[in-house]
């Protein structure tokens, strides 16, 4: 991996390109940064506590249930490795409104930045080989800033790999509140016409 972007800056681009009505699911490092960037939107699903690797299938379920909404599911590379088959499931179900953002930093960041198995795993090629047609990879913040709208606007399912730099000494995200109430509020917002 030749270049890596700052995680926070990649998420700022996503914030700028998010449309009203979009669902954004964050987990692990993306959840920590997303919560620190400002107030949450009712359609933000901060997947904390989580089960590693399940943010993407959670997003698939939301996308199938709400086909008129764009659902953006953020996953780390280590998390995705726990559920690589989910890329195949997504390709099979082919939801046009689902975007998978893979933040590839090469480490399990929140446990102390231990390396994930493999070096320079090519998630973009894996996504294509799984049958996902719209696949992008960005390693440069300027390119991501310019290309995000086009990539996010493709016909889904979409997979976007973002090469990001690990944050030394980063900690795991803290739950923003009781899950029962958060799930109910989010479901109400998600199902609102």
């Amino acid at each position, binding site marked *: 991996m030749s270049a890596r972007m700052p995680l926070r800056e990649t998420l700022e681009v996503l914030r700028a390109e998010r449309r009203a009505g979009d669902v954004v699911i964050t987990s692990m490092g993306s959840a920590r940064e997303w919560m620190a960037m400002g107030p949450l939107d009712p359609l933000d699903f901060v997947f904390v506590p989580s089960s590693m690797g399940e943010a993407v299938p959670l997003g698939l379920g939301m996308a199938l249930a709400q086909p008129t909404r764009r659902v953006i599911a953020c996953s780390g590379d280590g998390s995705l490795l726990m559920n690589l088959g989910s890329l195949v499931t997504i390709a099979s179900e082919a939801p046009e409104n689902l975007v998978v953002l893979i933040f590839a930093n090469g480490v399990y960041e929140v446990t102390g930045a231990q390396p994930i198995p493999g070096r320079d795993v090519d998630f973009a090629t894996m996504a294509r080989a799984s049958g996902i047609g719209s696949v992008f990879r960005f390693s440069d913040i300027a390119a991501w800033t310019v290309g995000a709208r086009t990539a996010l606007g493709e016909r889904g399912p979409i997979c976007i790999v973002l090469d990001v730099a690990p944050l030394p000494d980063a900690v795991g995200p803290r739950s923003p509140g009781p*899950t029962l109430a958060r799930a109910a509020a989010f479901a109400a917002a998600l199902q609102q016409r």
Partner: protein
Amino acid sequence: MTEPSAADTGRAIADLFAAMGITHVISVPDSTIGPWHAALDAHPSLRLVRVCREGEAWAVAGGLHLGGARPLLLIQCTGLFESGDSLRNIVHDWKLPIFSVIGYRSYLNQSTLPGDTCLVFTEPVLSAWQIDWKLVTDTVDYGEIRTHYERCRAAGIAGAIVVAEGRA
């Protein structure tokens, strides 16, 4: 009385799920529930979502539930064992009342797998995960699936029907 064919059972199950108001069936097949897939796939009121592993199924179902759909998991008990952390997260962390129909491998016949440890672990694992489950041992009792589903739905809790299976 002649046992119904797998295809007939599949059609009856699909009609039953549709009558329950189920919108999506998320499944990994086994040799008993797999032959039901064709009928589930063909039913106009149901969408069969084939996933790669059962842990994935709980999260897909969780997303569907949050989005206002009515999902049901259709998996084997071995897939229940595989589901662990995802089940814990969806059902207990997030308290989403996901209902499942779980095939109980070797319950009726151990000729293929003598000493099948599914018989040792299925019931304790369901209880350990605090799932409100019922066992159905005969196809004529499949109506119990709806009864238990409606009871769990009214209570807002996760539930399961464990379907006794024959040879693996």
